[in-house]
């Protein structure tokens, strides 16, 4: 069993490898935000926040912190050279209009059809969708970064049981155990597997069918 910190590192680093030089990306709150710590040298990525910032920079030290510069989670950040600020209408024009190359979000559930549920557990947790529904519909590529299971329960399912965030929009699922592609029109393909997990073990903690890529790779599990 991996400790949580290592699992998150594996996921964040693997997602970061998806970015192309010159991409503009939006990162969700929590684990997706950690992806920015692992962007490979030589790959320059602009990070957008739906609260109205393009070019999110590192967390400031106390000397440089300004309460007027935050990310969408409300955390104080800085802005990189070439970055800019804008209002919510423009922020979501970027998002819905397909100007964001990739969005990285967490999930409660994701299914074989590329459906995503990540905004509500009826009767239990009702945070609201925030910008998630717009991001998932609008971004060119939707990458789900999540731990493979929650309290032992599978999160990759045949069909989501929780209310959906969007239908058929997920392109890639990255967990600490594997990487799966969602085919256009539905269907999962396992493309990478952790050396710490066998195929049978993966099937046991996955609630969906998947095919194994003939070019299956071993995932970096450091």
């Amino acid at each position, binding site marked *: 069993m991996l400790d949580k910190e290592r699992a998150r590192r594996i996921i964040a680093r693997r997602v970061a490898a998806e970015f192309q030089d010159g991409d503009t990306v939006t990162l969700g709150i929590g684990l997706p935000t950690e992806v920015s710590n692992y962007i490979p040298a030589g790959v320059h990525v602009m990070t957008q*926040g*739906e*609260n*109205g*910032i393009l070019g999110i920079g590192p967390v400031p030290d106390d000397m440089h912190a*300004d*309460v*007027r*510069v*935050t990310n*969408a989670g*409300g955390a104080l950040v800085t*802005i990189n050279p070439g970055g800019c*600020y*804008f*209002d*919510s*209408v423009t*922020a*979501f024009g970027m*998002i*819905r209009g397909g100007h964001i190359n990739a969005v990285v979000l967490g999930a409660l559930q994701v299914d074989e059809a590329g459906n995503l549920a990540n905004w509500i557990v009826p009767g239990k947790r*009702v*945070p*609201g*969708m*925030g*910008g*998630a*529904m*717009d991001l998932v*519909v*609008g971004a060119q590529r939707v990458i789900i970064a999540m731990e493979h299971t929650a309290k032992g329960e599978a999160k990759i399912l045949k069909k989501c049981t929780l*209310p*959906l*965030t*969007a*239908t*058929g929009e997920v392109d890639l699922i990255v967990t600490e155990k594997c990487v799966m592609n969602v085919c256009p029109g539905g269907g999962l393909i396992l493309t990478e597997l952790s050396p710490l997990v066998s195929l049978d073990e993966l099937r046991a903690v996955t609630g969906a069918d998947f095919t194994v890529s003939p070019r299956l790779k071993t995932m970096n599990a450091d």
Partner: protein
Amino acid sequence: MAQVVSKEFVGSLVPVGATVMVGGFLKCGTPQGLIEAVIQSGAHDLTLIANDTCFPDSGRGRLIVEKRVKRALVSHIGTNPETGRQMQAGELHVELIPQGTLAERIRAGGAGLGGVLTPTGVGTVVEKDRRVIEVDGRRFLLETPIRADVALIYGTRVDRFGNVAFTGTTRNFNPVMATAADLVIVEADCLTPEPLDPDEVVIPGLFVDYIVVKEDQNA
């Protein structure tokens, strides 16, 4: 031209049962002094239109904790447990709206449009009670305009003409809300003695009715 008024005067502009837009994204760009003025005025049974209900001890969250809101149209309530509690108890009606859809509905309200067509929410619970309109083979939801009686917004630098400029990520919903209410009140971090550089203006002064200068410059 916009009028500079006291915080106390603002309270008299928000009657019981009013529909109020409040700018800000969590704490950032929130007109905290105007919110406190509304609380002190005793206004209640308000309809709140905002990005989020912030935190229990700050921003729009204070209106929730003080039980001044009967209906909230917001995109996110996860940072304020009191909103969830009042909702579950049936004391507060919450309508959750995708953030981009909320922005566009307000824009439509301010720009004289009959609504907007968005792909956001298709195939989800948001589609319920919405008209679906197909354009070139793609399905969109018809989202209707939203307006308010009063908009409480924030500005970093405001001049006597009501022109508003911002620093950092404080813009968020403030500029669009300034267009979509019968009465617009801006809380200024700084009221500039000279007119703003026209190139710097984000909210044209014609949208702004009243200016309140923030009292505690360190808060």
